[in-house]
């Protein structure tokens, strides 16, 4: 049954959330980004993959507000569709990483012993490939393409969520009510769902938001290098990949996708920071 | 006269409103004397000390006058009062565990104090520091000098801070509950040490405590504070022989005694300083309060030479 009254603590958190400026601004940007991704077919003025070679590299004008690329494709339309690509890559890869991270991290902490030891070691090893390098390594093995970028970015996020889940599960595990639940014979699965998971929710939500920002950047980076999403699928990083050629002649080619990318990432970072302030009040100044 | 505080008022601005933490406090302090300030938690004792040494944040309003030597401390320029701090006026805080910088040795801290206020070499600084560590009776002053705070016990750290507070032979030493955070056995040692050192230096002390027993052990004069106000001020002898204010009497019943007589805490608690009670601030908890106490604020009056009290029912 759906319960509509919220307990006072939740209501207080919600009220603080709606007042938080970072959440408001970040949330608005994220909402626009998501809408752009979802509604791309309806709001983009042109087909993002079809160009008119006679209109190649036009600067912004009335017909093409953001100008056109070398193939004469409308950059505005490609920016709008690019949101869809980023949305898919980032949400799917973060989603996979969260699920896998929660299971592995939770089990590792809950079971403990050698399993925990092994998991921790493997995560240390994965985290030894800094930042984009792990994604790059995976991309080198699996090759370019939309699905492969998702795999690469998910793997790059995975150890982070294992760490967080493991950390908060370790805390909860020692709590008296968990001991009590065990003593009265509650099943492990039920303890996991009823105690470990809810307690880890706040840091995971915060981190998932921040990792979405990082994932958008990483995926765009891979595509910028040519190791990610391939043309003709519109993708912001990939749209900038031959920017060097157009530094002097047509900066609009890389300026607009860059703005879209920057603002979107900023939105997720703002939202993540705001959520962190609201959900983990002790870090507040 | 070393220190003369007149009609001191301190108020903090908070979200709940203005907290009048010190409200019209006046007293004087002679050289080589110790004033013990007693009162329950929240009565404004620490605020008083911080006001004297000029450590309150700039946003806090301080009115009235604090005359020290020939200087007026309220409204003094930060740079000038900074030079007095650590040199002419020093303070020992309640919490020795966190009062020392974790990344520096004791020696480094004491050396920095010396070099801030004196022309002299590092060797002078360290030898003076060592001398004082000896005087506060730490075992192995040389070793302590090279120790980091985490290597020392709470009692040891408080000894270090006491040494730091006396090292430059200040005129005024403020001690804000210097033993409250320590183990009971250590408390007694530190109190004994302070009593001993007092006779060796020429400083005056303001010793803050919530324990009347401790106040009796160290104070020449005792000031009793309640809800930001001074309610009674007298020599130790007068105060203990004839406490006048009902609050002081209540405190005396609340002091644990070694022999006989159980502890009788004063019923009720310190009122909010945002909206203090009208009239005498103590009246809601006072056993003998009457109509006048509820309406009219009592002045601090000198009932007998050297014995001041703020109560309508006295005299």
């Amino acid at each position, binding site marked *: 049954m759906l319960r509509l009254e919220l307990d006072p603590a939740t209501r207080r958190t919600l009220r603080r959330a709606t007042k938080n400026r970072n959440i408001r601004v970040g949330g608005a940007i994220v909402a626009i980004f998501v809408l752009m991704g979802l509604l791309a077919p309806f709001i983009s003025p042109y087909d993002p993959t079809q160009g008119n070679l006679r209109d190649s590299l036009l600067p912004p004008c009335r017909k093409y507000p953001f100008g056109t690329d070398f193939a004469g494709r409308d950059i505005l339309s490609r920016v709008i569709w690019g949101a869809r690509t980023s949305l898919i890559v980032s949400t799917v890869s973060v989603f996979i990483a969260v699920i896998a991270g929660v299971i592995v991290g939770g089990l590792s902490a809950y079971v403990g012993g050698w399993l925990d030891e092994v998991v921790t070691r493997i995560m240390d090893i994965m985290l030894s490939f800094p930042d*984009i*390098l792990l994604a790059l390594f995976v991309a080198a093995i699996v090759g370019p393409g939309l699905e492969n970028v998702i795999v690469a970015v998910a793997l790059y996020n995975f150890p982070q969520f294992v760490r967080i889940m493991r950390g908060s599960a370790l805390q909860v595990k020692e709590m008296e009510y968990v001991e009590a639940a065990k003593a009265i014979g509650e099943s492990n699965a039920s303890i996991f769902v009823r105690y470990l998971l809810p307690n880890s929710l706040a840091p995971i939500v915060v981190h998932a938001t921040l990792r979405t920002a990082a994932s958008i950047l990483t995926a765009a980076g891979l595509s910028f290098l040519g190791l990610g999403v391939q043309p003709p699928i519109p993708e912001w990083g990939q749209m900038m990949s031959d920017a060097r050629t157009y530094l002097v002649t047509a900066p609009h080619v890389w300026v607009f996708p860059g703005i879209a990318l920057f603002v979107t990432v900023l939105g997720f970072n703002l939202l993540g920071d705001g959520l962190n302030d609201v959900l983990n009040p002790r870090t507040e100044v | 006269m070393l220190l003369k505080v007149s009609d001191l008022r301190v108020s903090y601005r908070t979200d709940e409103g203005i907290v009048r933490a010190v409200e019209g406090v006046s007293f004087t302090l002679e050289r080589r004397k110790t004033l013990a300030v007693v009162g329950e938690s929240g009565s404004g004792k620490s605020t008083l000390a911080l006001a004297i040494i000029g*450590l309150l944040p700039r946003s806090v309003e301080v009115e009235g006058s604090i005359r020290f030597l020939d200087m007026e401390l309220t409204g003094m320029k930060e740079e000038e009062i900074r030079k007095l701090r650590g040199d002419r006026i020093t303070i020992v805080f309640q919490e020795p565990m966190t009062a020392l910088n974790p990344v520096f040795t004791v020696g480094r801290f004491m050396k920095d104090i010396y070099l801030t206020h004196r022309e002299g070499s590092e060797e002078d600084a360290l030898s003076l520091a060592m001398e004082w560590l000896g005087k506060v009776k730490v075992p192995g002053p040389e070793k302590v000098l090279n120790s980091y705070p985490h290597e020392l016990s709470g009692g040891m750290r408080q000894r270090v801070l006491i040494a730091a507070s006396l090292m430059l032979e200040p005129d005024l030493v403020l001690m804000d509950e210097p033993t409250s955070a320590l183990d009971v056995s250590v408390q007694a040692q530190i109190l004994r040490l302070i009593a001993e050192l007092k006779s060796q230096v020429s400083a005056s002390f303001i010793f803050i405590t919530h324990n009347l027993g401790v106040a009796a052990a160290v104070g020449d004069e005792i000031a009793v504070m309640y809800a930001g106000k001074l309610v009674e001020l007298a020599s130790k002898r007068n105060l203990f022989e004839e406490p006048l204010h009902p609050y002081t009497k209540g405190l005396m019943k609340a002091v644990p005694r070694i022999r006989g007589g159980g502890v009788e805490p004063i019923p009720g608690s310190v009122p909010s300083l945002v909206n203090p009670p009208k009239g005498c601030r103590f009246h809601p908890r006072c056993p003998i309060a009457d109509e006048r106490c509820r309406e009219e604020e009592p002045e601090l009056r000198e009932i007998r030479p050297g014995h001041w009290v703020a109560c309508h029912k006295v005299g």
Partner: protein
Amino acid sequence: MSDLARYVVRRILLAIPTLLGVSVIVFLMIHMLPGDPAQLLAPPEATIQEVEIIRRRLGLDKPLWEQYLIFMSNAMKGEFGKSLFTGHTVSELLWPAYLNTLTLSVLAMGFGLVIGVLMGIYAALRPNTVRDQAVTSLSLFGISMPVFWLGLILIEIFSVWLRILPSGGSGTPRHLILPSLTLGLVGAAYVGRATRASMLEVLSQEYVRTAKAYGLPDRLVIYVYALRNALIPVITVAGLIFGYMMAGAVLTETVFSFPGLGRLIVNAIFARDYPIVQAGILVVATTFVAINTAVDILYAFINPRIRLG
């Protein structure tokens, strides 16, 4: 042995299994790729016989663990075989590129640390004022900035408009300015955030009040007593950021056509020149682990409390 020495030894020993793990993963790359490793490591035009020769010469017919041992003993000597296409040995290509990237990262790091720490202190000294908000927003902008886009913007400004700096290439110190500025600005954003947070925390500590209570001058209290403590967590962040810079160099180097390790790796991935990819990734990861180990040790020197732990 002193506590500190013991800690240092333990910390170094702790890095070894991690590095072994990294090397195993990198080694396995060639086996994780679809297809026959010998075929992958042979030039495209090789005949079946030639592939067999390569298989034997590289020991690819031996059991996996033996291959790993060979790989490792060579790697320890800094040898990673030959590039499949260029005719050079991997080391000939690897070390100069590594040196370039290292120079770039160190410069960027220096830049990021100086700017970031100053920004963080500046903000923390007046929390919740306009200047604090300005610094906080700027840091968030920096963190959200695609590093390759920032690079393009800087090229547009300094090379296209002002024409005072080269837009790419290498060879003179001037070529290092824009790439290291690009990476450094992003690094500064991270360092600034970390410094601000930890400085705020430290300034509210009792020992800072004690220092003030003893009349120590502001510059001593802030820049020595407080900062020394505030930098402890920043050092850890800096270690992570250095890794970020080594990795982020992949993008920056591409933007600036800078002949560093990142570009070498990316080009090798395109060319399927796997020995170079393996060597490059192994070297970056090893550097990262080494830096973090060094940071932890430095941490122990600065923070006397953890030596016991």
